[in-house]
């Protein structure tokens, strides 16, 4: 089981490395969206610190949304997904591996680039740390919940638009507490532990339930 997991993660990473533009696209989308807000709202430092948590998190939601459609699409088109459904191993392991690879490719780069973005909004050092932590703890939940949506809309016309309609409302708790954690550090100076614990709770809960639901949906979709 572990070997299957490792094989699929490595395979997906390798495939993505062969086509680097997709990863970079997500990353630059994230940066561009975040850079647009100060241009539209104004560059007053007080305002920037106020809006930074929400802007960063909404940009992260949209960026992870952007490539979600392709989570299963390539494997679905060339028939690999059907072979994966036929393995004797549990399908949820396959899904888990694919989602992990997806997070390594789209979530982790956002976490790593966020300090740079935070500088644009003139956040202090400890606020940058809290931003990294909240993104690190929250983005896996986005990939997990998103996988359900990706499986639901697999192979549909206009699947991308539909996907965002289905998944974005489900992202709300992560957005609220993710942005809340940064805001607690930056604006109100409240303790942040509770936010981190809730974000990790979402991540673990979605890790437990989402692969299972996703594999059920994949079976319906490929019937």
């Amino acid at each position, binding site marked *: 089981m572990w070997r299957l997991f490792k094989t699929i993660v490595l395979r997906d990473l390798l495939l993505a490395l062969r086509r680097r533009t997709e990863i970079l696209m997500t990353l630059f989308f994230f940066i561009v969206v975040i850079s647009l807000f100060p241009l539209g709202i104004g560059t007053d430092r007080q305002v920037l610190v106020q809006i930074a948590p929400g802007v960063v998190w909404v940009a992260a939601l949209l960026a992870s949304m952007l490539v979600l459609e392709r989570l299963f699409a390539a494997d679905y088109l060339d028939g690999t997904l059907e072979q994966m459904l036929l393995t004797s191993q549990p399908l949820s392991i396959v899904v888990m591996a694919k989602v992990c690879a997806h997070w390594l490719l789209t979530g982790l780069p956002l976490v790593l680039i966020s300090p740079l973005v935070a500088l644009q909004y003139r956040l202090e050092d400890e606020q940058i740390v809290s931003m990294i932590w909240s993104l690190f703890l929250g983005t896996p939940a986005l990939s997990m919940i998103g996988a*359900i949506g990706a499986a*639901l809309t697999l192979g549909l016309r*206009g699947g991308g638009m539909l996907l965002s309609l289905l998944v974005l409302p*489900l992202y*709300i708790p992560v957005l609220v507490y993710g942005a809340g954690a940064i805001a607690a550090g930056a604006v109100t100076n409240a303790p942040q532990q509770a*936010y981190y614990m809730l974000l990790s709770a979402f991540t673990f809960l979605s890790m437990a*339930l989402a692969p299972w*639901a996703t594999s059920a949906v994949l079976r*319906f979709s490929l*019937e």
Partner: protein
Amino acid sequence: MIVSINWFKYSSPASFYPLAGRMIPWFAVPAILLIIVGLYWGFFETPNVLSDQKQYYRIIFVHVPAAWMSMWLYVVIAGWGLIGLVFNTRLSFMMAAATAPTGTIFTFLALWTGAFWGKTSWGTWWDWDPRLTSELILLFLYIGYMALQAAIDDVRRADRASAVLAMVGLLMVPIIYYSVNCPDPNQCTALHQRSSVRSIESNIFWAMLTMTLAFWLYSFVVILKRVRNIILEREKYMEWVSELPEIKSQRSRDR
């Protein structure tokens, strides 16, 4: 007298279709009567709790029942979806699909009447109050559900996929509600607007309950009507459909 119902017999669309037709008047007549009674009671027979000028509060007799129904119908959809996935019955999915538009309409009605109420009492059409926000998110969930169902051409896949979506949504609703209710986990005691059902006058409460019952019966009527249409649409090539008297007369007229 104990009536034992053979549930499996009526889980077949062919035998449910006529049953639904017979059930509709039994729900429609009480629904109309209760709406008339409830509205009259609510509008003319309840005391003025605020002052003579503040008659606008009477929108409560539409607003609260609509909000309750909007939440309940989402649970119903997820429940039908679960039954459908477990027992593999086509009719359960059809019931879920028939319930969604009614639920959406009630959600919209609750938001719309709430906006009027908010404008007159708070002076604003919209406020980011937790209840309003969660009702808005419920509307998004309903729309997502119907959009997914409309997007998938294969009926079997559409049914099952949307059933899973409804159940995921149902699981997320408490979490979303909690998160909009208390965005700051350090101080979660201050819930904005606690439920005030217990503190209101019994007269108003009963009028509101009458309206809720009326809306509930109304939902039965439209859902049964809609499910009859869905059955006809999905089973139009079946033999029993072509033998229905209403279809026969229609077809002979077309010819």
